[in-house]
């Protein structure tokens, strides 16, 4: 039953994917991309990947859509029409793409089937991760254990990728604060949705709850699905919602650009510092067991701290990027 439902979702996903490529209206394409993300998230959930589903929904369907829409507002909504709809080059591209897809499908027949317990993925490393999570780290969520401790170095790299993207966008577009005189009076342009009563009131009602959810996801990541990335995205979403409702300027006065920069850098440094503490206390980088007398307790501390670092950096970067985009719109 679940498998059939999965197949149904994936078929929808395939159709959505083709529609995304086919449509000339970029706005429609972005919306369909959001739908595709949600379909993928649902499929992930069926495939037992609750953490990934949550992340895909928050980042793929949420943040990514907001960024695309922000970019579309500043560029154009439609692809330009091509004169020749079917040229030889596009036929050639279509042919190559089709052939490669067939080759990939041809290769699948040698692959382990879905859910096969004897597949190398299940047989080789997985039992060790499950057992060690139980014995050495002692938290219920094995995904968090692998993410934060066993492969914590990958996660550090990932935080650095996010940080790099933040640095890059701010370098390219300038910060939200710098392109506008500080303390400018609220004008039509940067007033957000101030004149719309219903969204504003509802937004005020919801923002605290979204923030609460963000913190819950942040600190509950060891016990259920969640963790720094998801929490960072959710917290950023609440700030972005505030900026949409109350205007850019208000949002920047609540969390100024300097604080956002400090968040970007500080979160990464916090992660790094926890790792370096491992070296200083006589073990290897990112070994949390030396952080406390009891190694298991040390692991808990380490995971808690680095998840905080991740959350801070992700929130800082996403809010900064949003401001950088939004500042262009009003400038």
């Amino acid at each position, binding site marked *: 039953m679940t498998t059939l439902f*999965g197949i149904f979702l*994936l078929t929808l996903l*395939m159709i959505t*994917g083709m529609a*995304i*490529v086919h449509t000339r209206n*970029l706005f429609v394409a972005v919306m369909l991309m959001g739908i*595709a*993300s949600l379909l*993928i998230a649902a499929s*992930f959930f069926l*495939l*037992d*990947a*609750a*953490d*990934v589903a949550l*992340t895909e929904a928050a980042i793929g369907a949420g943040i*990514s859509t907001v*960024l*695309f829409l922000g*970019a579309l507002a*500043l560029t154009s909504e439609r*692809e*330009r029409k091509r004169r020749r709809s079917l040229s030889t080059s*596009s036929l050639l591209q*279509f042919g190559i*793409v*089709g052939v*490669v*897809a067939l080759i*990939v*499908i041809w290769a*699948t027949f040698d692959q382990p*089937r*879905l*859910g*096969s*317990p004897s*597949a190398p993925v299940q047989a080789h*490393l997985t039992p060790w*991760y*499950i057992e060690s*999570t139980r014995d050495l780290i002692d938290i219920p*969520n*094995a*995904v968090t254990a*692998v*993410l934060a401790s066993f*492969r914590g170095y*990958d*996660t550090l790299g*990932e935080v650095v990728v996010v940080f790099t*993207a933040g640095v890059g966008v701010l370098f390219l*577009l300038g910060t939200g604060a710098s392109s506008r005189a500080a303390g400018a009076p609220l004008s039509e342009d940067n007033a957000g949705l101030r004149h719309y009563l219903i969204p504003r009131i509802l937004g005020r009602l919801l923002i605290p709850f979204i923030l609460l959810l963000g913190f819950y996801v942040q600190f509950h990541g060891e016990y259920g*699905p969640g963790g720094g*990335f998801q929490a960072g995205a959710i917290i950023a979403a609440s700030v972005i919602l505030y900026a949409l409702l109350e205007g850019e300027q208000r949002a920047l006065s609540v969390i100024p650009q300097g604080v956002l920069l400090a968040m970007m850098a500080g979160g990464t440094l916090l992660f790094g510092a926890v790792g370096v503490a491992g070296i200083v206390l006589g073990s290897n980088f990112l070994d949390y067991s030396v952080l406390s007398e009891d190694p298991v307790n040390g692991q808990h501390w380490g995971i808690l701290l680095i998840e905080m670092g991740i959350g801070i950096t*992700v929130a800082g970067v996403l809010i900064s*990027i949003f401001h950088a*985009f939004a500042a262009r719109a009003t400038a």
Partner: protein
Amino acid sequence: MDILGLYHYWIFAVLLMTGFFAIVAKPNLVKKLIGLSLFQSAVFLCYITMGKIEGGTAPIMGEGAELFSSPLPQVLILTAIVVSISTTALGLGLVLRIKDEYGSIEEDEIQGQDQP
């Protein structure tokens, strides 16, 4: 049995190449980035599919469950999702700058302006 066991991978193949087609065939820069997102999402699907185990649950150890799907592919894809959004954000930042400088986001028009 092949259909049920391999369907996920087939969809991965089709989605991967659908996204790739958008990247190579569409001249609109935003459309290219949308294609890139789709292209990367297909890879996520491939990884998550291989982590699933028949009759297992999400690798969160509560009471009762004994068989867990593999946490490792999930961790890898968490990383990959974040990498993907980072690339998209930087790409969109570039698109905005290109729009400023060239007044267009169509690849052939930009190339036309670059040729003196």
